[in-house]
């Protein structure tokens, strides 16, 4: 059974049908791409998958559980984590604390334990520090661990978002334009990291990206959206040569 099964998903904002009849299947341990021209509805799909928007039709089944219309918090607990197109870090917290906030539901202790500093406070904080540092090392952020997140350069902020999302121990990771604003060298590096994350954590990844080298380079399966509908899906080569896709990107009759 597929990890994520989306059937007939759609959402309308008033009279505007932003996404309709979307079907998608995501298998464990694979890398998927979601592409399409600006305004095609890609981020809207992400927002439905993570509960920011409630779909007006269709179902989202994660690991056999129906999560359609659940709150973002519950969906995160069910195993979907995400990054944002316009970076949303906890700006005033340190880099380390950003990841520790991601670990919130992984290592738990109550407010009273925290205020009274009971022994388990120190034990669990230490465990959190260790896990968070491990994640930061993967993204080469360990030097910056104690700086405020807002002081990081742009590329590192994007990486920190991925590290924070991974901290929630997801089964499926959604990356919204992870390479946006990166130079070719940084993009190359990010491709390596994304591959490593997939292998190391054995999770499925679905990403939105405009950088075609990036998408074609790492995604095993690509879905193309235009005007809220799937116009093509398949491997990189299949999609690249599809006349509908070419028309959508370059314009055509």
């Amino acid at each position, binding site marked *: 059974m597929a990890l994520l099964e989306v059937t007939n998903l759609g959402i309308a904002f008033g009279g505007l049908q932003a996404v309709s009849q979307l079907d998608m299947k995501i298998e464990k341990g694979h890398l998927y791409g979601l592409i399409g021209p600006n305004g095609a509805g890609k981020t809207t799909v992400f927002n439905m998958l993570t509960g920011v928007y409630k779909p007006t039709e269709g179902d989202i089944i994660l690991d056999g559980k129906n999560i359609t219309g659940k709150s973002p*918090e519950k969906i995160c607990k069910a195993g979907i984590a995400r990054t944002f197109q316009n970076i949303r870090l906890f700006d005033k917290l340190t880099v380390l604390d950003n990841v520790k906030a991601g670990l919130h539901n992984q290592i738990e202790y109550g407010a009273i334990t925290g205020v009274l500093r009971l022994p388990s406070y120190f034990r669990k904080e230490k465990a959190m520090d260790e896990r968070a540092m491990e994640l930061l090392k993967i993204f080469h952020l360990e030097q910056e661990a104690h700086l405020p997140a807002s002081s990081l350069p742009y590329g590192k902020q994007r990486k920190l978002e991925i590290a924070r999302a991974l901290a929630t121990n997801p089964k499926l990771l959604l990356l919204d334009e992870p390479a946006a604003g990166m130079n070719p060298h940084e993009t190359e590096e990010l491709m390596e990291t994304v591959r490593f994350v997939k292998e190391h954590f054995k999770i499925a990844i679905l990403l939105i990206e405009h950088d075609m080298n990036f998408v074609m380079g790492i995604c095993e399966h690509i879905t193309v959206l235009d005007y809220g509908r799937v116009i093509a899906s398949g491997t990189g080569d299949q999609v690249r040569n599809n006349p509908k896709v070419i028309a959508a990107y370059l314009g055509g009759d």
Partner: protein
Amino acid sequence: MKKLCDRFTGLNKNTKRDLANYLIVVVAFVIMQIAVSGGFLSNSLQGLLVPICAYVVMAISLTLIVGILGELSLGHGAFMSIGAFSGVLCTIATEQSIPSDGMRLFLGFVVGTVMAALLGLLIGIPVLRLKGDYLAIVTLAFGEIVKNVMNVLYVGMDANGIRAAIDDEAKLNLAEDGQVIISGAMGVASGRKIATFAIGIVLILVSLFVVQNLVRSRTGRAIMAIRDNRIAAQAMGLNVTKYKLIAFTISAALAGAAGVLYGHNYSAFQASKFDYNMSIQILLFVVLGGMSSFRGAMISATILTILPEMLRGMKDYRMLIYAVVLIVIMIFNQSPKMIQWREATLQKLPKIPFLSKDTAKGGK
């Protein structure tokens, strides 16, 4: 001593900041005690010691909402009011059964804190769904409601127990030996002045302990994450409503405790004391202190409570000078040019461990 110094420098930066805050409070206490016993303090300043402690606790408590949770509350005086009245009610009502002042005051603190916390929780559930300006307006209205209810509330006690009534003292139907404890707009008329400066300092230390440890814990991290980015916080699986409520309730509880302290410093006080002006004044302490700095809030609460008293000699110009001082502090604290100048001067100074930049800049 050297060993102790080494251990101190080995601690992490945040822990140092927190410890420095406790130290500042203790040092302030010792200095004031020496000043009092040496006779350097005027009577009116001595009378301010306990209120200063109460205001400092209020400032710490509101910093939790404004600076750490990032929401604006304009009705914080209401929680202080609830704490003051329920605490005083408790100490007066138990006068016969518990002879020790200390025990009764302790009980008063427990009751006042719990009452304020319950009210905070109750009001927080519907109100915390709102954000920003809307929350500010609702809390403002809430403060006025509490003030007006307390204005018409009569509570009395006789051999049959405690009774409350609205609007009219006669409705209490007290027996001959009965005693009215809270009498409407007149408030408490026969309060017990059993709060001391030392108790106030202990309360400040306890409040600091609670908020500072909270901020450095998983719960505090969640609260600050929600402040910094609510949408991302939800996406990371944080229960936004729960953590907002925790912050709000703890803050209300501390404000209640401050109220108990305040109420036990006067033989008479009225509900009108805890009005809109009081709430705004406390917000002023927090803003001048730098919004999210507990140390800043404590310092500005102290200065701004003493200032009007020091300026008493100026008569008509008193509030004018007070306002000018506010503006000057605000510029000194927030203007980018001033901050630059301050940092440049600070670097020219020889390094003293306590005053060097990372500890002097106020901790969260």
